[in-house]
């Protein structure tokens, strides 16, 4: 008897004063859950016999189709067909918007885009803005992906340390991921413009005001920095997940071997983080190439055309400007898509080969 009481006390003690609250929650929780789940239960009651019938008639193969069809139908209509149409567009010319009013011009748009004396000098190209956008996008991806991966990695490594407030800081870095790109661009433009917050800070320290977005270097850096700011939280979490999956005893073993921390990072952490790092790299790469909303709102592509990226070029040529040329835009997007696919396949191939090498 006494034993039992002691046991009850032991279990009750940590609950402290909010025990009643917890009991209430325990009682309300399931009730709430039932109320919320009721519609789902009813739906399932209704669907189940139908599905059994289908399974009986069409077998498991039929069920696979049932599972795939809703997604694939929508996917086909709203993603695949537009992509195919886009391909068709790229072979048509004129300013008309609807496909059936447009004239077939064959590979003319592609010829125009690739007509270049020297691919490294946009001005020597027939469509100089396309090549400027391509150059800008290339350097943007190069710097932005490296910056983002390093910053995310550092943050993940720090968050992986055993320190106070880890959950809080994890959330802090994730916060901007939830903002819409338009808002992100807007906020930062507000900060970086001539009369913005950053200049207030800079002048408070006695320095000259800089018109950040008028300077090729700063504007490009701002585009990189802002997109890193907006997305790094997501990548940090993926890397953090990978870090936490690395068994602790490996580090203990390394400590026993008196391995210097840098070596621990390069020889243990990094290789074991491989799969996560590959995902991060591929996603960052794809996002980098697709950079649009936040940079467009932030810099409008300026100064000059210093931050005009591929997607902005396509959007403006094909849709936004009064002088649209949908065929040219479509051809440009097809070229960009081809580069992306090649890059991703290369990336995946490399990481797969690395993985295989490690397995051996």
């Amino acid at each position: 008897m006494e034993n039992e009481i002691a046991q009850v006390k032991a279990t009750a003690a940590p609950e402290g004063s909010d025990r009643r609250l917890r009991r209430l929650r325990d009682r309300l929780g399931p009730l709430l859950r039932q109320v919320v789940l009721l519609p789902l239960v009813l739906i399932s009651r209704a669907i189940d016999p139908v599905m059994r019938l289908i399974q009986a008639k069409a077998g498991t193969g039929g069920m696979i189709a049932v599972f795939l069809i809703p997604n694939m139908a929508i996917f086909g209509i709203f993603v695949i067909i537009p992509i195919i149409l886009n391909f068709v567009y790229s072979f048509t010319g004129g300013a008309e918007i609807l496909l059936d009013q447009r004239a077939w011009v064959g590979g003319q748009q592609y010829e125009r885009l690739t007509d270049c004396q020297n691919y490294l000098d946009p001005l020597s190209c027939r469509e100089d803005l396309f090549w400027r956008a391509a150059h800008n996008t290339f350097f943007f991806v190069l710097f932005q992906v490296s910056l983002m991966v390093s910053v995310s990695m550092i943050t993940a490594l720090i968050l992986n340390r055993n320190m106070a407030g880890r959950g809080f800081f994890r959330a802090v870095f994730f916060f901007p991921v939830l903002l819409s790109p338009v808002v992100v661009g807007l906020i930062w433009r507000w900060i970086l413009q001539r009369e913005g917050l950053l200049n207030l800070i800079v002048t408070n320290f006695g320095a000259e005001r800089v018109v950040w977005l008028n300077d090729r270097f700063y504007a490009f850096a701002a585009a990189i920095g802002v997109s890193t700011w907006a997305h790094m939280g997501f990548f940090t979490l993926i890397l953090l997940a990978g870090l936490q999956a690395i068994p602790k005893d490996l580090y203990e073993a390394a400590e026993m071997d008196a391995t210097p921390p840098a070596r621990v990072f390069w020889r243990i952490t990094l290789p074991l983080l491989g799969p996560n790092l590959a995902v991060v790299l591929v996603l960052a790469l794809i996002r980098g190439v697709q950079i649009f909303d936040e940079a467009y709102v932030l810099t409008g592509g300026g100064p000059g055309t210093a931050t005009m990226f591929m997607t902005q070029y396509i959007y403006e040529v094909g849709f936004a400007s009064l002088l649209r040329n949908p065929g040219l835009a479509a051809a440009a997007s097809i070229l960009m898509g081809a580069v992306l696919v090649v890059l991703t396949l290369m990336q995946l191939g490399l990481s797969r080969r690395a993985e295989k090498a490690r397995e051996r």
Partner: protein
Amino acid sequence: MKKVFLGASVLALVAGTAAAQTQTPVRVMWYSDGVEGAVMADILSRFEAENPDINVILDNVAFQVIQEQLPVQLASGTGPDIARVTNLKAQADHWLDLRPYVADPAYWEANFGDRFDWMRPDGSDAIPGFMTQLTLVGGFANATLFEQAGIELPGPGASWDDWIEASRQVAEDQGLPAAFSIDRSGHRVAGPLAAYGETFIGDDGLPAPLSDDAMEFITRLVDWTGQGLMLPDTWVSAAGTTYRAAADDFTNALIPFYYSGSWQVANLSTKIGDAFDWVATGSPCGPVGCTGMAGGAGLVGIRYTQNPEAVARVMDYLASEEVVREFTERTLFLPAHAGIVAEGGLNFQSDDPNVPPALSRFVEASGETLPATDALPAWRWANSVYGALVTRISQAMAGELTLEQARALIDRDIADQVEAAR
């Protein structure tokens, strides 16, 4: 369960529109730069009270929708019944000819006839709609800054060089970052180009290559930017045809001279308030003249409407003299109604002492435009020219192109446009 819910929401939607079913719906797609959306809503609610059989739905949209989405709708033969549009000429085929439907075509001809060519295909006699406002490109000066610097405001007939020089002195004296700015828009620089002698339109009606006269002004513009006289933020800090206004820099007293247009009057009034005195200056002069560019937004019927009679009734109401007068007075726009202009005596609703003189200066300046600029609003290729000008001039300002390269590329861009559209 889900079906029930869906059904319910569909029902709710249907019920919502059912009340309007007995009325003829007329949709107006409208964008606002300031208070005009609210004013229009107010006017339309009075119209509905007088005409219970018509239900006017005012869709207040972003300008981006008018510019990007309406063309797509029109191309597929859909769209609202009435729209407020700036790109009037290029889409002229889509506008409804109101002539058979309006109560008094003669009234329309008399009061709006001058601008019909801006919004109908060449050679047509259609009544497509009317201009909700006229705009005129022109300058604003910060009189207080000029006074503090002890510099006289350049008087009538002052040239661009005079204005920039005077502004430069003010900027230097007052420690300002730049002397002046022009909105980032091809439409804005077209006037000065014409003042330097550019005529834009070739003998065949197609765009002519850029003249040396035009290059004269473009060279100055690029030089002024290079010397830091023109605020680089507006032109340099964007690419392509993106529109950027320098109004905030002017209201913040960063520049003593600002070249924009009559539509800024209301905006400047609210943002500047009592902070300083400002005046409208008209357009500085070039060798050929002192011209700005006329323009504005037109309200047009759309050909694809189901109810042209109802559309015409709405348009008749909105184009009536008293409504135009009220709209003009409340929005501080320049009127496009010949009768009202002739009659004058507009009672603009503003407490700001800077507003009335500014508006009358613009009305006055509208008489100073050159034929070269007057022809542009009714010219199909104007947008192509504007777009090429903005894109390439700002690249030259950013140092990406030499002036010669910019000139060649402007000509090529325009030629491409003409080629693509034929």
